[in-house]
């Protein structure tokens, strides 16, 4: 058990720090959350800067245009960018963390050449067409249909909770290509161009008041058969490849951020007198234990992945269950510190408190994660 970093890792950290200190001051101001074109331009601009500096696709394999960094280097990258206040992956999330790695692992040489470089260079944005109104946690219940017509699939149906749909160039789309097959079988994975005729995007307003995601309606949209990743009706397996990556390191930077926010909350409590309340101090102390431990669990999971050649283990579900809950606890504690001001939407912590409510739902609800832990790790029998 070793928590020290190798000289190579320390050198990587030092160079990254130096570069961040140099480029971050020249970034344009952050656009408002509802300015989608502005956010797209901002996020792509940051991606381009990463590309030019050699940090794009850090964790992607080298033969996919990535840097082939070790999981530990990726951890350092996420830690340092968060500490330096660098932009989040933002609109590039699906391309870099989802669709990209999936194409890199399952795509043909032509598909890799077409779709991977523009993601790394910050030229194209992807969105994720997985969830449907009747297929959220039960993803395999999806009903969007695709049938063959010559060299095209014709797709009809609808998707929901699609982040970045308004500004995306591509959608990683799950469709049902064999309605007669068992529900996990007859599914295919398609790359759908978002400018194809028949696509309607309707933004959804979240409880936080912002338009974080959208509904996407598909009315006989034509997608070339050559845009299918993997075999026809093999989309479920392709998708599972993707989801294991999503839970692997997606939250590393956020844990670092939560530890920073917790310190700010404590200092705010000192300033406004709430710190004199022992019950509140104990609560914040308990949260300190929580986020320290979550950071250690992250280091544990990353080290495990590194030993297994970069493949994330099942620890992702364990982590997500506790982290999503802890994040909500953090902002509840922040609200207690703020008192009446916690009801002011002008406070960043109030907005963050609202958005934290999505964490126990998105990327597999806590209830589904509990089932995954119980069945796949503990080996309990599947329920009916």
């Amino acid at each position: 058990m070793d928590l020290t970093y190798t000289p190579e890792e320390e050198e990587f950290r030092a160079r990254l720090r130096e570069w961040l200190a140099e480029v971050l001051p020249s970034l344009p101001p952050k656009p408002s959350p509802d300015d989608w074109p502005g956010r797209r331009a901002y996020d792509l601009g940051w991606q381009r800067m990463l590309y030019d500096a050699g940090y794009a696709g850090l964790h992607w394999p080298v033969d996919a245009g990535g840097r082939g960094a070790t999981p530990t280097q990726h951890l350092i990258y996420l830690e340092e960018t968060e500490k330096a206040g660098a932009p989040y992956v933002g609109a590039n999330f699906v391309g870099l963390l989802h669709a990209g790695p999936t194409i890199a692992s399952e795509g043909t040489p032509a598909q890799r050449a077409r779709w991977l470089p523009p993601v790394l260079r910050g030229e194209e944005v992807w969105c994720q067409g997985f969830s449907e109104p009747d297929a959220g946690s039960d993803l395999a219940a999806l009903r969007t249909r695709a049938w063959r017509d010559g060299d095209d699939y014709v797709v009809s149906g609808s998707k929901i909770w699609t982040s970045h749909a308004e500004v995306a160039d591509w959608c990683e789309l799950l469709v049902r290509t064999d309605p007669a097959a068992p529900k996990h079988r007859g599914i295919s994975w398609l790359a759908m161009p978002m400018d194809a005729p028949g696509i309607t995007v309707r933004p959804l307003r979240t409880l936080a008041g912002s338009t974080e995601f959208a509904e996407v309606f598909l009315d006989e949209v034509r997608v070339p058969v050559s845009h299918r990743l993997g075999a026809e009706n093999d989309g479920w397996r392709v998708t599972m490849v993707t989801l294991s990556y999503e839970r692997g390191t997606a939250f590393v930077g956020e844990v670092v951020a939560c530890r920073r926010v917790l310190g700010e909350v404590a200092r705010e409590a000192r300033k406004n007198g709430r710190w004199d309340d022992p019950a509140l101090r104990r609560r914040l102390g308990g949260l300190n234990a929580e986020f320290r431990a979550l950071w250690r669990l992250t280091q544990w999971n990353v080290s495990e992945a590194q030993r297994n050649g970069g493949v994330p283990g099942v620890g992702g579900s364990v982590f997500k269950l506790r982290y999503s809950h802890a994040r909500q606890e953090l902002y509840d504690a922040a609200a207690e510190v703020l008192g009446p001001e916690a009801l002011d939407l002008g406070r960043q912590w109030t907005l963050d408190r609202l958005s934290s409510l999505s964490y126990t739902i998105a990327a597999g609800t806590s209830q589904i994660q509990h089932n995954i832990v119980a069945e796949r790790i503990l080996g309990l029998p599947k329920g009916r």
Partner: protein
Amino acid sequence: MDFQLTDDQRALKAGVRELLAGRFGRERLRAAVDEGPRLDRALWRELGEAGFFALRLPEADGGVGLGLPEAVLAFEEAGRVLLPGPLIATHLAAGVVDGAATGETVVTAVDGGGLVEWLAEADVVRGDATGAEPLRPVDPLTPLHRVPVSGGAGLTDVRPVGSTGALPTAPLTSLFTAAEQLGTAARACETAVQHARTREQFGQPIGAFQAVKHLCAQMLVRVELARAAVYAAAVTADPVDIAAARLLADEAAVRGARDCLQVHGGMGFTWESDVHLCLKRAWTRTQRAGTATESEELLAADLVSGVGR
């Protein structure tokens, strides 16, 4: 960074587990409960021979020369089998009290909170136990005395052995206690899962029901989070890390044992089931070397101190 057990650490952990499975398995545990709290001196010497107490003593002084992480792994295994006795006090006395390292001398200590474990059975008591009054202990395998004057009566004077010689006794006691809690929490989780797989109701194993599944999953989540925190604290030996590890390990053990009892249903409420032994030991350990409040205050102070981030 390679925050995983090394091959040697795995081997050590497996070795301690094997030793304890052979010498303090389930039958021995139940027999000890029936016999009442008498320290098994032969087992104590065997632990001494195996290096349990001298683990961190330098090889030049006749010890094994290992560090805190290895000791934590050994205490985790002791916690898993609910091994009774003043293990931590004797371990901390190795190299300080004659015979402690070899298991010839049984050493106990007055804790800062004013409790002494195994006072009547110990050969040496560290700290001032004048006027100690026996309690009727909730855990049948941890006899307890209460010392009238508390606070500062603990073992601040002991200079522990090994590379972490600068650490006072209380954080080390807390760290090893956390390791024991981790082992007990893991045992409770495994026991619950085993029961949920085999016990049938309504024509299927109860583990197929989501309500039971989720209890078990939550137990594992608490164990794994505590494990990461305890192992990290063993590596850093940082008092704030230790306080965090202790909070999470106490939670994992106490709540884990309660959930295990719940999964066992009516059987879990019987003397015959082992579940209550896990819970009672876990409760007993929560009183050792500082309360949860003290840990939380230390962690709160860390947030505003500007160091430790």
